[in-house]
């Protein structure tokens, strides 16, 4: 069987463009791989194979005619199932939307299509993005490719696992509090959460609007750059997007080293992580010392209320965003006979999962009259203080380094019964969402048991290029490619 699925997207794109490989040949290799692999991983909710083949033939025709093709020519992109693709089911891994078919393309999907990328299917996740293990899905949990009895991380678990298990080279996830970076860390892939406002959320089913962004997942930073360029930029359909100055690119080593990056190391956070993660990350940082960078230990003052503030805001927004799922305009079949609208709403909305219900209830509570000042307003104060503190740090540093997750992947079902424990694991990732700053998780090694962990970089707003530069350096220094042989 062809091993083409092991190749990164940038290699494939060039081969297809040069005519050494047809998009159709490649897509059928990918489809075979998914059919073989995903029975074990469970990363797909909807497969879009027929359309994908059709699309690949159209791309081949373009190439034969000598027409110009896009930066994602022939590349299958997997889409988290909370991003709208016209004509495909958009379940958000919720029984509430099990039959809902999107009537329009999200802006990011339009962009991928116009760059000749191929939408290969919709990927599994925690219901409505609420979770950090991808176990909370009516389609069953996503399994960690490195050990199928372990969680893949979440909520974009399907997006990370499908890329990690060599089914697809690139996927899109969404990151509200680490939902791209956590599974990237658990699955040993690269996941990037862009600056708030740099990628259109039009078509992304909202969980917490003020914090979430769509972002890419890939196995190499060389594949992150073209997809990031494809999806970024101002969008008329999203009032919170902004105009970006320039395209991102892969710089040469010399160019990267020509500017003296100032790097702040959040040692406290590294030291509070599991021992193997702490050791692994400290080792990586040591290697950085050979480059002409300014490395310095630094710390964040206010972290005590970060998790509380994050969950108050996220749940408040979620409780409102999820109100629209009342089964009137779309949803699933539910016989209204004998119900007035109130009881029909109540009946219909009972199909939300327990974690979603928990967040709706808590979110409604913190917004109630009389509690707004006690919870939501305070959470916003904490949020702006955290942002202020980060802004101060970014006057001194270009990039901050910290672990992505304080823990290694754990067993399926192990922590599912203790939500607060799980919430607390988000501390390192929510910072970028509370502040809106861009953050990337890149593979940082493996534990003795063979579980991956990630290292996280956070940069100032719209400084994604610095994250990319550092990721390029890391990838040159620490290549885990051979590890994928075991998958």
């Amino acid at each position, binding site marked *: 069987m062809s091993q083409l699925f092991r190749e990164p997207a940038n290699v494939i794109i060039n081969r297809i463009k040069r005519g050494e490989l047809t998009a159709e040949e490649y897509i059928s290799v990918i489809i075979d791989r998914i059919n073989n692999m995903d029975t074990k991983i469970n990363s797909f909710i909807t497969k879009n194979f027929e359309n994908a083949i059709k699309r690949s033939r159209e791309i081949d025709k373009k190439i034969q005619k000598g027409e110009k093709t896009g930066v994602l020519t022939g590349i299958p992109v997997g889409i988290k199932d909370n991003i709208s693709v016209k004509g495909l089911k958009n379940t958000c891994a919720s029984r509430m939307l099990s039959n809902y078919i*999107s009537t329009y393309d999200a802006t990011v999907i339009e962009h991928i299509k116009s760059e000749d990328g191929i939408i290969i299917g919709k990927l599994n996740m925690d219901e409505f993005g609420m979770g950090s293990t991808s176990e909370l899905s009516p389609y069953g949990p996503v399994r960690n490719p490195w050990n199928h009895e372990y969680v893949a991380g979440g909520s974009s678990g399907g997006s990370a696992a499908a890329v990690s298990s060599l089914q697809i080279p690139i996927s899109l996830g969404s990151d509200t509090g680490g939902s791209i970076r956590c599974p990237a860390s658990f699955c040993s892939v690269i996941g990037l959460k862009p600056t708030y406002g740099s990628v259109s959320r039009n078509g992304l089913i909202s969980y917490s609007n003020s914090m979430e962004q769509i972002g890419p997942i890939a196995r190499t930073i060389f594949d992150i750059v073209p997809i990031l360029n494809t999806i970024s930029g101002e969008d008329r359909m999203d009032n919170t997007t902004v105009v970006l100055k320039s395209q991102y690119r892969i710089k040469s080593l010399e160019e990267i080293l020509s500017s003296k990056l100032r790097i702040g190391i959040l040692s406290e956070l590294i030291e509070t992580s599991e021992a193997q993660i702490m050791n692994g990350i400290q080792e990586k940082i040591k290697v950085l010392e050979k480059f002409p960078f300014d490395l310095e230990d630094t710390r964040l003052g206010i972290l005590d209320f970060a998790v509380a503030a994050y969950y108050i805001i996220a749940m408040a927004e979620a409780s409102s965003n999820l*109100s629209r799922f009342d089964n009137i305009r779309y949803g699933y079949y539910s016989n209204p006979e004998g119900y007035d609208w109130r009881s029909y709403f109540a009946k219909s909305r009972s199909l939300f999962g327990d974690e979603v219900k928990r967040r709706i209830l808590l979110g409604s509570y913190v917004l109630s009259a009389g509690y707004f000042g006690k919870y939501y307003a305070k959470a916003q104060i904490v949020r702006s203080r955290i942002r202020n503190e980060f802004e101060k740090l970014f006057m001194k540093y270009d990039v901050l380094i910290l672990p992505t997750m304080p823990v290694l992947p754990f067993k399926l079902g192990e922590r599912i019964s203790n939500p607060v424990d799980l919430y607390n694991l988000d501390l390192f990732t929510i910072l970028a969402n509370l502040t809106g700053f861009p953050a990337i998780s890149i593979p940082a090694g493996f534990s003795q048991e063979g579980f991956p962990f990630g290292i996280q970089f956070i940069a100032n707003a719209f400084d994604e290029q610095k994250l990319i530069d550092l990721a390029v350096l890391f990838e040159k220094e620490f290549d885990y490619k051979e590890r994928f042989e075991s998958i």
Partner: protein
Amino acid sequence: MNTKPVNEDLLKIGLEIHCQLTNLNTKLFCDCLCNYRNHLPNENTCPICLGLPGSLPLLNKRAIEFAAMICLAFKCKIPERISFYRKNYFYPDLPKNFQITQYNSYETSSIGYNGLYDFANDSSHGKDKSNINNNKPTIRITRIQLEEDPGKVTYEEDKSSVNNYTLIDYNRAGVPLVEIVTEPDFSNPSDVRIFLNEIINIFEYIGVCDPTLEGSVRCDVNVSLRNGKKVEIKNISSFKDVEKSILYEITRQKTLIMHDIAVQSETRHWDEKRKITIPARSKEEEEDYKYFPEPDIPKINLGGELFISRLKSIMHELPAERLNRYTNLFGITDHSARILVNSKRISDFFEESLKFYQSPVEVSNWIINEMLTKLNESEKHENIDKISIEKLSSSSFYPKLIATMARLVDEKSINRSKAREIFDISLRTGEDPLEIAKKLDINKISDTEQIIVLIKKIAEDQPHLSEQAKNNPNVYNFILGLIMKETKGKADPKVTLELIRETLNTSS
């Protein structure tokens, strides 16, 4: 009228007026048409106004300008920065189960606040003679906010329990709505009526809303008596019923007080058929709307004074400003000026007529005394504004006609009854009044030659007149009388008198 309130009742009435910005092209947050009327149900919708998953609100910037114009008309303060809030409640007509609106409890987010409406300057109370008194209240405007209209629910039957189905039409969902909230500063139901009429007039002037469209302007009322609890009346579909509902509510509350029953703070619905207020479900008033800032719409920096002065420069003249111009600059009486200004259509007609003939007083006379009277006669209707507005669009009256009539009277010195005769003919036949005047032999009489011939003839017939005239100027008038008799009153008296003087002096 047995419920005429007196001061010791301490009647306090506050209003919440909803006005659709019907003159915008598109809805508040999407590209669907603002004009949702005359569409098939749910035809004028898109993913945004249907609240489909993943859709985001896209703010219509012109709606902000329109709303700000309303704020300026009510002398509201306009903040530098405004924002939107979500009002969360479940209802089938609300696609997202929250309404994007503005909310001032946590910050000043609304487009306008702290406004004023002064009855002294309004344009409508003048004609309402029964209500003229000198201590009309100044109405404080609490705030003016911009929000989206929900869809429309149609029940199979009035009683919801017996319904087999309910129809929902989202064509209206997302239509820009401006809410004007007043302090409870009204102490008289008739003031409310005058105020509402004036509001409608202002909307027409600044061109943000066509109040003749069904459902484009709606009003909720709150009423309290003797510092008691406030009762809110909702669902009043027509402005005519607003006054009725207040009067009903006063009677109801008085009766309660008479029987020593405390008035409950509650929301009541206006029953249009029975003309009474009925209690709304108690749940409705306990609703907690869980307001919080809308995350999908960034705060909007309006631009302060620059924004306001730019708006003022493109904004249509307000009725109060017109009234001021008509009385002070044109010298039109206050009474007449108010009649003109009270309807934008009439006032515009007046302005249009002035373009043909710059004589404001005479033109206004023709509009008020002749044209409006005729319009009123033609329809047996008591509401002068309404007829005029409807009839003006298709009537045989046109500005140039009125201007010409004014000119005929002014310049040709035709007397009024003659002028009316010409006016009637013109209205009947559509003929140019100048032509009619010519045909009627009216114009020729100001032909000096003809008059001089007559004067000379009289002077020859009665030679003593020339002599007497030297000592007694009254002789001129005597001769004028003879000429008028001769010409059957068609001679221009001014011209003739001048000619008599000249002729007699030169001949002597």
